[in-house]
C-alpha cells in the first residue's frame, strides 16, 4: 500500500493547498432515494476534488437527463453546472471544453442517458477524445420514469413493472474500447476508495476518461439476481488491482517487490500505482481488455479497476491548435480583423 506523505495528511484535516475545506466542495442536499449509489459517487467526487486541491471555479459539471444527471447539483456548489438534454451532454461538453480549455469538465451520465438515447454522442465524444471525466452511473433502469429497462439491463432480468428483458446488454466499457477511448475503467459505488482514486486519475488524464460505475437503484433494480444490485456486485466484484493516485509533488516512498506494482505516469505529472492483486493484468493492451470484459461477462463476475490506459492519442484541443487564451476570453482586437483586411477581401470579388 502506498502511503501519502505525512505533511499532506496533517494539512488534509482542515484546508487543502488552495485553502479550502471539504465543506467548500459540497453541493445542495440530494433529492435522490436514500441508499442510491449515485449519492456515494457524489461524495467521492467531493473528496477527490478536495484532496487534489482543485479550485471549484475551474470545474464545470455537465449532465444529461435522468436520476444520475440530477446529481451534479449535489456536489461542487461553487462550480458552474449544466443539466442539459437527454443523451446530449457529450456535445455540450465538446463545445464547452473547446471554448475554455483551462476548465476541468466532469460529466455525469446514466445508462439510459449514455447507452440508450445517447450512445451516438457518447461514441463521437470518444472519437474526438474530448478531455473530460465521463462517469456513467449505471443501474440498468430508468428511475424517474419508474422502472423501465435501459440498454445496460441484464438479459432475462425480470422486473416487477416491465417483465422480462429479452435483449443483450450494452457494455459501456466495451463500447469505449471499440471507440478508441484511452481511459476505460469500471467500478462499483459500494467501493468508495476505488471510485475516488479512479476519479482522481481521470481528472489527471488528457482525453476522455470513462468510469462506468455500477450504482444500484435501490427502488427499481436491487434484487439479488440483478448484476446491478448491491448484493450481487459485492459478492461478485473482482478488483484487478489496488489503485492509488499519487500527486506530482510526492515521492512514492514504499518499495515493492518486482512485478507487484505497475506505475502509470499521467499527463499532469501525477502517477497511478496499480498494485497487483490476484492476477497479472496489463491495462495497456486493448485486445486483452476486450477479452477480459468478455470473460468477466461469461464468468458472472464484476471486474473493476483501470481496464485500459493509453495516453498517446491527442486530445481534441491539441488537434485544433488554438491560441492559449481561451476562446471565451479573446479580446475584440483578436476577434475582429482590421478594416483594411475587409477592403482587401472585397477586392477579390471584382
Amino acid at each position, binding site marked *: 500500500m502506498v502511503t501519502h506523505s505525512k505533511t499532506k495528511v496533517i494539512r488534509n484535516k482542515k484546508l487543502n493547498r488552495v485553502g479550502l475545506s471539504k465543506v467548500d466542495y459540497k453541493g445542495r442536499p440530494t433529492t435522490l432515494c436514500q441508499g442510491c449509489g449515485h449519492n456515494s459517487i457524489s461524495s467521492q467526487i467531493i473528496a477527490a476534488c478536495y484532496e487534489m486541491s482543485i479550485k471549484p*471555479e475551474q470545474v*464545470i459539471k455537465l449532465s444529461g437527463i435522468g436520476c444520475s444527471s440530477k446529481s451534479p447539483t449535489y456536489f461542487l456548489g461553487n462550480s458552474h*453546472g449544466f443539466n442539459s438534454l437527454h443523451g446530449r451532454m457529450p456535445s455540450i461538453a465538446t*463545445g464547452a471544453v473547446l471554448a*475554455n480549455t483551462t476548465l476541468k469538465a466532469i460529466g455525469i451520465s446514466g445508462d439510459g442517458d449514455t447507452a440508450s438515447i445517447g450512445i451516438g454522442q457518447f461514441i463521437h465524444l470518444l472519437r474526438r477524445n474530448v478531455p473530460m471525466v465521463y462517469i456513467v452511473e449505471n443501474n440498468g433502469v430508468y428511475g424517474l420514469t419508474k422502472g423501465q429497462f435501459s440498454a445496460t439491463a441484464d438479459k432475462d432480468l425480470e422486473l416487477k413493472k416491465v417483465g422480462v428483458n429479452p435483449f443483450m446488454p450494452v457494455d459501456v466499457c466495451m463500447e469505449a474500447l471499440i471507440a478508441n477511448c484511452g481511459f476505460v475503467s469500471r467500478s462499483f459505488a459500494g467501493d468508495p476508495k476505488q471510485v475516488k482514486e479512479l476519479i482522481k486519475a481521470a481528472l489527471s488524464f488528457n482525453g476522455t476518461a470513462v468510469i462506468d460505475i455500477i450504482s444500484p437503484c435501490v427502488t427499481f433494480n436491487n434484487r439479488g439476481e440483478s448484476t446491478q444490485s448491491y448484493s450481487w456486485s459485492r459478492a461478485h466484484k473482482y478488483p484487478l488491482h489496488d489503485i492509488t493516485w499519487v500527486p506530482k509533488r510526492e515521492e512514492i516512498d514504499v518499495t515493492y517487490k518486482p512485478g507487484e506494482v505497475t506505475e502509470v505516469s499521467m499527463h499532469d505529472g501525477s502517477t497511478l500505482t496499480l498494485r497487483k492483486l490476484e492476477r497479472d493484468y496489463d491495462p495497456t493492451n486493448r485486445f486483452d481488455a476486450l477479452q477480459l470484459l468478455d470473460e468477466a461477462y461469461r464468468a458472472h463476475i464484476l471486474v473493476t479497476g483501470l481496464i485500459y490506459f493509453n495516453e498517446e492519442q491527442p486530445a481534441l484541443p491539441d488537434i*485544433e491548435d488554438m491560441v492559449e487564451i481561451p476562446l471565451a476570453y479573446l479580446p475584440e482586437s483578436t*476577434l475582429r*480583423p482590421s478594416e483594411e483586411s475587409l477592403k482587401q477581401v472585397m477586392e477579390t470579388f471584382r
Partner: protein
Amino acid sequence: MVEPQSTAQRKTVKEPIVNDFSMAVATVNGSGSQTSNLALIRALFRMGIPVSGKNLFPSNIQGLPTWFMIRVSAEGYTARRDTVELLVAMNQDTFAEDLMDLVQGGVCFYADHFAVQRERSDVVYYPMPVRRLVKEVDPPKELRDYIVNMCYVGVVAEMLGIELTEICGALDTHFKGKRGAVDLNMRMIESAATWAHENLTKRDPYLVKRDEQTRDMVMIDGNTAAALGAIYGGMSFTSWYPITPASSLVDALEEYLPQLRKDKETGKATYVVIQAEDELAAIGMVVGAGWVGARAMTSTSGPGISLMAEFVGLAFFAEIPVVIWDVQRMGPSTGLPTRTSQGDVLFIRYLGHGDTRQVMLIPGSISECFEFGWRAFDLAERLQTPIFVLSDLDMGKNLWMSETFSYPDHPLDRGKVLSAEDLDRLDEFARYRDVDGDGITYRTLPGTEHPLAAYFTRGTGHTDQAIYSERPEDWEANLMRLWRKLETAREYLPTPQIHHMEEACIGLIAYGSTDPAIQEARDRLAVQGVPTDYLRIRAVPFAHEIEVFIREHDIVYVIEMNTDGQMHQLLQLEVPDQSTKIHSLTINNGLPMSPRWVFEAVRSHDGV
C-alpha cells in the same frame, strides 16, 4: 487574341437589344460548366453591366440536367426573369424542351454533333463545332471535359460582344491567380472566339455594351457574405453538419478564417470549426460553447433545424447566446434540396415545445447577409437567446451584385456579463433576476474565479437564482420575464426598410431574397398606374413601424415563397384588428420569385 472589333460589333443588326436579356446555359451537372458560367457572368460584371446569375441544379453529383441563368439588365434589375432570350444548349437530352422555352426570335447556341431537330423556325441557330475546336487546342486528357465548356464561352463572347480581356480577368478571380489554369482556358476561349469570328454571321439583335453601373461593386454569394460577416463579428466557435444549401457557408468560413483570424505571431487559430456527427451534436456543441462564453454559431437548412428543435428550446429557456443560420430550402421532409423557399418562417418563430418565441433576422440583400452575419452575435449576447438568420438557397448559393461591405460601425456588444471584479462590488448574484427591468439578466462565465460566480444552468423550472423549482409563481414569473425580454428585443433589432411611391394606397410587405422581384414589379405596376408602397421586414419580433405601415394602407399584400402565407399569418396575429385587409400572395414552386409573377399576382388580386 482576336482583333478588337468583334463579330457582334461588326455586323449590323436591325434594332439591336443592348444589355437586356436572359441567357440559359443548359448543361449536364458534374461536367464542369460552373467555371464557364462564372467566367461569363463575372466578365459581364467587370464590363460594368448589371448582371445576376441563378443556378438551377439537381440534387445529384453527375449526369443530371442543370441550368445556369444569366440575366443582363441595363436597368439594374437582378430578379429571375422568366423569359429566356438566349440558350446555350450543351445538354442533348433537354434540347427539345429548352428550345421550346425560348422567346420568339431567340437565339440557340448548340454543339453541332448533337443529333437534334431544329424544331423552331423563329429562332436563330448558331451550331458550334465543339469537338473539332477542342481537338485543335488539344488540352491534357484529364482536363478535356472541363475545357469543352470553354468553347461556348468563346463563341458567346464573340457573338454578344463580351470582352475577352474581362473574361481573362474573371478567370483570374475564379482560379485565384493560378496562371496555368487561366492560360489553358483562355487558349480554348480565344480559339472558339476566332472560329466564330471567321465562320458565323450575326443574325440576332442581342448585344452587350460596356457600362459603368457596377463600379465599386462586388459579385458574391450570400453564404460567403454570411461567413465573412461571422468572421468580422468575432465568431470563435462553429459546429455544423453538411447539408445543402448551407454547407458552402462553412466552406467559406474554412477558406477565410486561416487568412483573417490566425494569430499573427504564433499562427494559432482564434476559432474552432467542428464538423459534427449530426445536427443534434452541432447545435449541442454550439450551446456548450455559447454557455462558456464563445461566440458560437451553426449553419444549416430545414431538416437540420428539425433536429435542432430540442436544443433550441433549451437555449431559449436557459438563455444561452447562439447564432443559427437557416439557408432555407424547399420542404416538407427532404423536399427539394436544391430549390429555394421561405418555408421555415413559422417553424422557426415558435421552434421548441411549450411556449417558445424565437428571434429571427432576415437579410434581404448580400450586404445584409454580411451585416446580419456580425450583428447576430451582438444580438445573441445582448439578448442571451438564439438568434436565427433566415437566408435561402437563392440568396445563399447564387451570385449577386452587391455594394462592397461596410465595416462594422460599433464595437462588439458582449452583453451583460459579470466578471470577478464586478462580483466583488456586488453582494449577491442571481442569474435570472431582472435587475434592470428589461427582462435581460446578468450572467457569469464558467471559470470566473469568484465564490459568487457559479450558478446551475438547467432546462427545468428555476428560481431567479437558477435553483430547481416547481412553484407556480416561480414558473410564471420567469416566463413573464422572458416575454419582457422579447419586448426589449424589438429595440435592438433591425427596423424594416420602407419605400414609398406617391399616391400609393396599396402596401406590399415582403422579406428576404424576393426583394429584387418586388422592386422590379413595383416599377412595372407604377407604369401601369398602380403605385405601391413597400415594406421589407428584416426581423421578428416585429418593429412598431410594421403595424403603422399596415394601418396606413387600404390594402396590404404579404408576398412570400411558401404555400401557407407564413409571414402573413404572423402579421395577422400581430395586428388582429387589421387582419381582414392583409392579404396573402404566395408562390412556392422552388424557383426564385419572378417580377412578372408579382406583377400579375398584385394586378389580378387588385382587379387593376
